[in-house]
Structure formats: C-alpha cells, structure tokens
C-alpha cells in the first residue's frame, strides 16, 4: 500500500513540481525588466539539470577520487599506495598491456572494417542485407555475445567430437588439424576476445561511416573519375578526406568504448590466463576483494585515460556548432 502511494506521489508529484518550478520562476521573472529576465531565464532552466548532475555525477566523482587515497575500507588515508599498486602490481601491468592491445586492435579493427564494409556495400545492390547482418550483433548484449562466442570457441581434446563451431569446422576441413583452446591458450586468447568486440561494434562504425559516405554528392566522385582518378584514387583523394571528421568521431567513440571494456572479458575468461583488463580488475577489487581504495584508484585512472579523448570530442562538437 505504501508503495502505491509512493508511486502516485512520484507519477503526479514530479511533473507537478517541474511545472510548479517553471511557473514560479516565470512569475518572478515577469516582475523584472524584459532584458534582465532574458539574461536570467536560461540559468533557471539549466538549474535542475545542474543540481541532478551535481548529485549523481560530480559528487560521486569527487568522492571516488577521495576514496582512491584511502585504504580498503575507506577508514584511513594511505597516500598514493593505491596508485602505486595500480602501476606496479604484475596483474595490473598485464591489465594495462591488454587494455593497450584492445585499444589498438579493437579500435583499428572496428573503424577500418566498418569503413571497408561501408564503402564496399555502397556499390552493391544487396547493400541493405549486408548492413543488416553486420549491424545485427549490436542488438545483442555483451553478456549474451560472450556466451555465444564461448560456445563458438569451445574446445574438446583432439580425437573427441568438437562442440565449438570453429574447431569443428577446421577439423572437418583439415583432418590433421589439432583443435585449439582459443580462450585458454595465452598466445591467442586476447585476440580471440578482441575479435568478439570487433564483431559487436563493426556494425556501429559501419552505420555511422556509411551515413557520412552517403552525404558525399555522387557528382564529386564522378568529377574525380572524369578527372582521371582510379577508384582507389577517388577513395584516397575525395572520399577519405571528406569523411575524415566522421572517422575521427567514430574513432574517439570507439576509444572511449574500449577503455571501459569489461563485459566480454568478465563473461568469457574473467581475466584469467593473461586476459585481464583494467575495468575487470576494478570490478574484482570492488566486489570480490572489497578493496574500495584500489577499485576507486582504478576508476580514476580510467577516467583520466578517457578524459583527453572526451575533450577532443567535445571540441569537435563545438567546432561543428560554430560551422552551423
């Protein structure tokens, strides 16, 4: 019963409070001179958003930074200990090395493949079908994708029936092929994980890049062809430069994406056998080892890593605003 009343209060009360807020400040502004009101009004509209941001983003952010300088239970300040752990612990070094691998190969893979698919599919009649298939993994959650690919990568010792699609295929094509433990063999388990990420995100890059490609007038490409350009030169000389800004946006989005990579690793290997990544380690410190200090320090490290990329993106948006 209490819950119903609470629900009613929320459903009716929040819109009422919003309207009341707007009505109240408009009533106050109505009493002021027109120009003064025009100056103050935008801030009053922004105020609720600022308040919410302060509560849900800024305060937790600052608090995380504070906790990152404290011990496991957040009782005592320990200086830079947690950060020292982050940058010296062998497990953490592996995590950073892997994050770097992800950064290079996931970002490169998704953007380049997305670009290739966008450009090539633009030239065939069954374009929509191709794009739909490649975009499809976007609709799957990371966890589901992890489970699917765990099955695809599945491994049984040689001589036994292979239950993983890849091993089964390879064995049936090459009878002498020795089945591989894709997720456990340290020489290729990281690439195997990264491939899952690429499989999921290529579709996104493709869609955005394809949109930019469609925005290039056909006549420009024709002009280049008449000017004497081969298809490759048309691509290098006209298409690529005109898509450059979109490629930068997609790349930075992918970089931000990959720095936070967690789910795939968590589901498929949980960071074992040299596949650890920073975010997964952060989760472990937080929920398995209950070391809030270390977990917070890792969160701060990730934040600092994404920050420059975010700044690049925000600058881009600002420049686009200026152009408009």
């Amino acid at each position, binding site marked *: 019963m209490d819950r119903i009343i609470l629900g009613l209060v929320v459903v009716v009360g929040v819109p009422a409070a919003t309207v009341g807020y707007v009505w109240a400040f408009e009533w106050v502004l109505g009493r002021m001179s027109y120009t003064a009101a025009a100056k103050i009004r935008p801030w009053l509209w922004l105020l609720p958003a600022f308040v919410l941001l302060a509560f849900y983003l800024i305060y937790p952010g600052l608090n995380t930074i504070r906790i990152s300088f404290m011990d496991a239970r957040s009782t005592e300040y320990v200086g830079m200990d947690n950060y020292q752990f982050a940058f010296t612990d062998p497990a953490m070094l592996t995590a950073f090395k892997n994050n770097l691998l992800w950064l290079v190969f996931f970002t490169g893979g998704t953007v380049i493949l997305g670009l290739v698919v966008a450009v090539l599919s633009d030239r065939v009649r069954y374009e929509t079908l191709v794009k739909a298939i490649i975009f499809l993994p976007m609709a799957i959650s990371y966890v589901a994708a992890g489970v699917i690919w765990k099955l695809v990568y599945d491994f049984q010792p040689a001589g036994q029936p292979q239950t993983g699609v890849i091993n089964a295929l390879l064995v049936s094509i090459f009878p002498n092929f020795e089945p591989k433990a894709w997720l456990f063999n340290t020489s290729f388990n990281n690439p195997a994980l990264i491939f899952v990420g690429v499989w999921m995100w290529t579709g996104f890059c493709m869609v955005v890049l394809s949109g930019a490609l469609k925005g290039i007038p056909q006549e*420009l490409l*024709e002009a280049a*062809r*008449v*000017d*004497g*350009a081969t298809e490759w030169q048309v691509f290098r*000389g006209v298409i690529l*430069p005109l898509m450059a800004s979109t490629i930068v946006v997609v790349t930075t989005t992918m970089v931000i994406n990959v720095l936070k990579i967690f789910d795939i690793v968590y589901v498929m290997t949980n960071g074992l056998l040299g596949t650890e990544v920073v975010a997964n380690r952060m989760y472990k410190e937080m929920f398995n080892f209950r070391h809030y200090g270390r977990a917070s320090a890792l969160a701060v490290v990730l934040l600092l890593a994404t920050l420059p990329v975010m700044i690049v993106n925000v600058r881009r948006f600002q420049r686009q605003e200026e152009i408009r």
Partner: protein
Amino acid sequence: MASITFEHVWKRFGDVIAVQDLDIFIEDQEFLVFVGPSGCGKSTSLRMLAGLDEITEGTIKIGDRVVNDVPPKDRNIAMVFQSYALYPHMSVYDNMAFGLKLRKTPKQEIDKRVKEAGSLLGIENLLDRKPKQLSGGQRQRVALGRAIVRDPAVFLMDEPLSNLDAKLRVQTRSEISKLHQRLATTFIYVTHDQTEAMTMGSRICVLKDGIMMQIDTPQGLYDYPDNVFVAGFIGSPAMNFFDVTMVEQDGDLYVDSGTFRLKLPPEKAQAAKPYAGQEVVCGVRPEDIHDREFTPPGIRAEPMTAEVDVTELMGNEVFVYLLTGKKQFIARVDPRTKAKVGKEMDVVFNMENVHLFDRKTEDVIR
C-alpha cells in the same frame, strides 16, 4: 581535339528507354548542344559519352576509338557539372591541379597551366580559397578552369549555367562561346534552355522522350523545324499553332481556321497540295504576325482581324495576346501599335514563314 560518333546508341533503365537509337556524328571543334525538356535523355547521352553511364546498345566513338568499355578516366574528356562538383576540401588551385597530379604532370607544368587558366578566367586571385568561400559565379569559373587545365579532347558541360542568376548567365554564355573559339576543341553542352542552345551551339540536337527530333544549325532549326515539337520548342515566345483545314479555291490553297482564312504562297501551296481538304496544323511565329499599320515591306502579308486580350510592353516591342474565336495567340509587334485591350486589331501574317504540319504525325509538310 576529336570528333564524336554516336552509332545507334540506346540506353534503357529497366523498362524505361532513356535514349533511343541516337545516331549523330559530331565534328572536331564543333559546339554541339543537346537541348530538350527534362527527362528527354540529354544528360544521359552526355553521361554515356563521359563513361558515367553504361551504353545499353550501340557504339560511341571518340575520334576513331570505340569507348564503350573505356573507363571515364581514360577517355580524355573533361566535364563541367551543374552543381560544379568542386572538391570542398581542396583549394581552388588544388581543384584545378587534381586531374594533372593524377596524370603525374611535372610540378612546374601544373603550376603554369593552373595560373594560365586562372588568369584566362579572371580567378587568379582566388587560387588559395576553398570553394565554400566563393560565389556561385566564381565556383562556376573554377569548374571551367578545372576542365581547361586538362586540355582534354572533348569538353562536356551538363547545364553549367542553371545555378547562376539571369544576368551572370547571359555574361557567362558569351564567355563560354569565346572559350570555345579560343580552345578550338569539341564542346558538347547540355541544356533545357533553348536560348542558351540558340546562342551558343554551332549545331543543336533537339531531344524528346529519348528520341532525337532534329539536329541542325540554330538558324536551320528556327527556319525549318521538322516537326511540331521542334517548332514549339525553339523560339521565344513559342510559335502559335492553329488547327486549320486546307481549302482549295480557284486553284489557290487556303488555310481555314473557321474564324480566318489565309492564302498560301505558291511554293507553300505546292508542297501542301496533297493535303487539300484535310485538317493540318498551321504554325506561325509571333514575330511573323505584324500590326497592319506597320507591315514591313517585302513580305507576303495576309490580313486578319482578332480581338486584343492582353498586351505586354517590352519597350522595343509589344507582345499582343490575341483571340480568334476561342483560340489565343501571340503577336510580337511594333511598339507604336495602337492595340487596345478588348478592341479589334488588324494584323497581317507573313505567309512565307508559315509552317504546315501533318496533324497525325506532327511532321512538317514540305
């Protein structure tokens, strides 16, 4: 420099026939204009020549070389697009140099040619700018310059003036004509505007629904249109068409519309004789209808009277919209005319320039 040959060229888009059996020989250094209403196949013909659209059937030759399967880059053509299609990320200089760079032309040579073209077109001070910073007219020049520096065998232009304002269009029209004389190269020009066609072309090819209606010099098209379509398309204001009956009386032939009857001169009557008693279409250009008071000397004038519906004073002349029965027609008369709206007006037709067309086939009776 090269001649162009279209040999029985067809273009189909699925079931739609865009170009039907186009057969033209265009001489070296000619300025040929494809003209016609939208959807007549003029752009498609040009695009097939450029290699941007495939030829469904037939052969296209540049010089003696069959180019059906030659990609655009190897055809040695340059094209000016309606939208100009300037590369937005390149400066004016780089836009013009792009084609030369692709051909591995030496740097000094590129520089020389771009600067020459720049000064020829009066854009030498804009070479560092980006297309976005240029006005429509300047962009148009850059597009021309990009074509010129290439020194191609053939210039193709697809409605290059239609994005310019009226005044600039007239000016650029004459500049392109001058350019043609100066470069002494084959020009192929597509437009829907008959004035552009008439003023620029050394020959004009009139297209309608993918079919070539007539190809001739501007004066030839104006004086001797082969059919009702060409007669109505060339000339502004357009030719008046009357549905008339050919009547024979005392050995003479007359055209009779029911409201007026005009005698045909002997040489016209000769050709029209087989049509005696039949219904035909009679075409008269507005400039061949005169105020009777100001009949020019030396024409074979046949009088008629019509009611003045509207008059439009142009300064040097007056367009008079006349009514005979329910049929409206236009006369282009001397500005001293005393025509009054609502009043009768005496006019004369210059029968020497009357065109007669078969009503069914719409072909000229000659």
